[in-house]
């Protein structure tokens, strides 16, 4: 075996008396993709931040190529060839790809007006692409590029500075499946060039596709370091159990047994440019799952049902009566609530406390006739809901931005519960939520159905739709390609309809 690229030993880090890392070891070989796993709070992001110089370790040692080094600042990390690529890298949208790669390093010349030789930069970028062949047009401006192309630019920027260790922080969470393929191809190229990669993700299936080894952290300690080639490790459930430290209950709750009256019925529902002729019925106690990849129109379908986007045509009936909705406000007062997929932008008021967020959609419920808010009643109602969803927070006065992804999602769900709606639409309910919290959210949704509510889950995660729902619908490029009871269809069939739209001829 070659010399170890990076060796972190006995790393300790404490925050206000809480041990975030307690003697963690981590090793990285050149040309290796090493996945770092753990549920939220396990310490993986703390470890990465120590390596990239954002935090300083309290104890432990870091060795690079066998030499002991100290990383006291982000600049130290870069000088040692360690770079982090975030899932949404910051760039200048109006600059071209290669201009962004060499941003801040355009020229060696000094002075007030150092001239930038664009052709020179272009040539340097070409040379870089020759070393790391990947299919990308560097002459286009970043604003025209897709998410994966932006990530590739960010990786190339790191490589242009001769980085030898790359940290990829949830690189695929905003990518479609085809885009993920493109990124994986680049990772393979990097491996051949002996770049060592630390790969962080919530998606277990990816690890077995791309990683050589995986290290699992739990409560700030090492649990295991495994090779993905072992048959024993090649089992999602086993890895998930190691992450959680307990036997994982079945991730998905039992399906519905009793279906009530028809709640929502949608006919001939269209939004120009997004989806056409969608029709479905949802009954009380039933979960309808709508699967579609990014760009298939599923995202818009949820928002149009919620009337945030005005529909082009179609009818929506609630309990048999036709609704004409023109805003989210009207949708909510008619008993429809959307738990949006993009929590940060659409779901929550970040710098306000939990109670503010939970009661926002139904302030009438906690205000007196004068319009003033009855704080006692509000605190009481919110506390009840927060207990019901098992939110892990200091108290309901805590700012939402300080919560973890799973808990933020629970706040948004609580906001929905507070409206006491009849129909709940969940868009991407578990994006950015760790495995442990995922199960909790699934059970919450199923509970809601058991109370007689009609539920629609919209997701780009096929397994989620298959596991959670009673009825399934698949959208491909705005057209319905599959619509039947989940009991009658197979996962592969659903996936095929969503990915290729292909006929299910067998």
């Amino acid at each position: 075996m070659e010399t170890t690229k990076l060796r972190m030993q006995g790393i300790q880090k404490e925050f206000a008396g809480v041990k975030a890392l307690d003697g963690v070891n981590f090793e990285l070989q050149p040309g290796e993709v090493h996945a770092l796993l753990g549920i939220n709070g396990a310490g993986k992001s703390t470890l990465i931040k120590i390596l990239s110089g954002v935090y300083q370790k309290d104890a432990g040692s870091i060795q690079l190529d066998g030499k002991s080094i100290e990383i006291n600042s982000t600049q130290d990390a870069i000088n040692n060839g360690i770079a982090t690529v975030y899932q949404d890298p910051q760039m200048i949208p109006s600059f071209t790809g290669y201009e962004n790669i060499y941003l801040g390093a355009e020229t060696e010349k000094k002075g007030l007006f150092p001239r930038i030789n664009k052709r020179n930069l272009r040539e340097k970028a070409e040379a870089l692409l020759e070393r790391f062949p990947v299919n990308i047009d560097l002459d286009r401006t970043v604003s025209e590029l897709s998410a994966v192309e932006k990530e590739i630019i960010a990786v190339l920027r790191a490589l242009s500075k001769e980085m030898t260790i790359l940290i990829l922080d949830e690189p695929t969470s905003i990518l479609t499946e085809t885009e993920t393929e493109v990124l994986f191809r680049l990772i393979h190229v990097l491996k051949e060039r002996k770049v060592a990669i630390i790969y962080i993700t919530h998606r277990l299936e990816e690890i077995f596709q791309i990683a050589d080894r995986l290290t699992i952290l739990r409560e700030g300690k090492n649990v295991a370091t495994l090779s993905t080639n072992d048959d024993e490790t090649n089992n999602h459930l086993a890895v998930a159990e190691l992450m959680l430290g307990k036997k994982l209950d079945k991730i998905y709750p039992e399906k519905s047994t009793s279906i009530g009256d028809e709640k929502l019925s949608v006919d001939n529902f269209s939004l120009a440019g997004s989806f056409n002729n969608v029709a479905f019925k949802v009954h009380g106690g039933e979960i309808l799952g709508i699967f579609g990849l990014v760009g298939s129109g599923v995202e818009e379908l949820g928002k149009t049902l919620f009337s945030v986007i005005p529909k082009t045509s179609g009818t929506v009936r609630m309990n048999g009566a036709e609704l004409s909705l023109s805003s989210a406000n009207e949708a909510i007062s008619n008993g429809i609530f959307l738990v949006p997929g993009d929590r940060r932008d659409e779901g929550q008021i970040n710098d306000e406390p939990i109670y503010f967020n939970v009661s926002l959609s139904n302030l009438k419920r906690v205000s007196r006739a004068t319009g003033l808010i009855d704080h006692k009643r509000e605190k009481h109602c919110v506390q009840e809901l927060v207990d019901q969803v098992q939110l892990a927070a200091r108290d309901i006065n805590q700012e939402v931005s300080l919560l973890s992804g799973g808990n933020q999602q629970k706040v948004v769900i609580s906001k929905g519960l507070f409206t006491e709606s009849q129909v709940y639409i969940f868009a991407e309910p578990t994006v950015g939520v760790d495995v442990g919290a995922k199960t909790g959210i699934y059970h919450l949704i199923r509970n809601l159905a058991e109370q007689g509510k009609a539920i629609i889950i919209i997701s780009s995660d096929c397994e989620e739709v298959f596991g959670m729902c009673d009825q399934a619908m698949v959208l491909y490029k705005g057209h319905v390609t599959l619509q039947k009871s989940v009991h009658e269809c197979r996962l592969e069939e659903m996936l095929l309809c969503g990915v290729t739209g292909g006929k299910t001829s067998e």
Partner: protein
Amino acid sequence: MNDKKLVIFSDTFKPITIFLMMIVLMFILFGFFEYDKGYLSTRNIRMLFTHMSISAIAALGLTYVVAVGHFDMSFYLVGCLAAMTTSYFNKTDLMMNSFMLGNIHAFVIPAVLAGIAVGCLWGLVSGVAVGIFKLDDMVTTIGTGFMAFGMAYFYTKGSFIYDNFLTSGITEINDAKWFAIPFPIILMAALYFISYLFLSRSKHGRCFYATGSNKVAAIFSGVKVKHYIIIAFVVCSGFTSLAAIMTTAAQGVGSVKASLNFLMPAYAAVYIGIAVFKKPTVIGTFFGALFSAIMLNGFTLMALPFYLSDLIIAAAMIIAIMASKIDWASIKKKKSNTAPAIHAN
């Protein structure tokens, strides 16, 4: 992360304590230097609050706009139009022929209301432009503001209106006293109390802050974002119009430049409030306005020229904005590190 000490001070009382300490300190400072000039006399303190009430009411209006996450650069110019409108009605024959209510002519009331109505109308224009047509707030309100300022010249081509000011009773807005308290102070107290209930205690207040904090999430939560933006601009212009009319009454002359110096003090009051309360609040703006008023009053007694007071209050505003950017919690932690993330390099 969360020190126990921080929890003892509740979220509202801690900032109020900070303000009270600052204000007591300033009273001691000025009181010490200017005891012989009667700084701490009842008369001076009454005067301080009377002067404060005008800029405080304008700042209160601005608080609404800042709460919905926007800026208004038009309110001080709209005030000029409102002041001229009221002055214009004040000089008409209708005024002198109207019956008397005590020692004022009854037509003063519709004249004042007309001024405020014109101001609100202008606020509506800005609000619709920003809220519904989604135009850039800064540029749009500079435009609407200067349109109003241009309109203010229509009445007299810009010359002063002195007519009837001494006889119509309009100056009573400034001079009247109820239970020995000057009327402007009562107006200020009433508007602040109502606004406190509305912004900090009512369901509508929640919607203002939700809109200001995250417009998209507010829409997804069923908040009628457009309505609240429009209301904010209308309230801002309406309150400033009232303040401008109060200035007119105090000066006893209708001038197109009535409220031309409202801009900076109003922003200073709001942002000093934000520096301590972390968001635009009614109480914060009140203390911000009080803080500026104490300084202004002290400097006046020290016979500093007016432009120096402007300079000092503007500097206080910038210091306040700087202070509000500092994350005190992370400074307390000794090992804090503010190095930028790698991708920023």
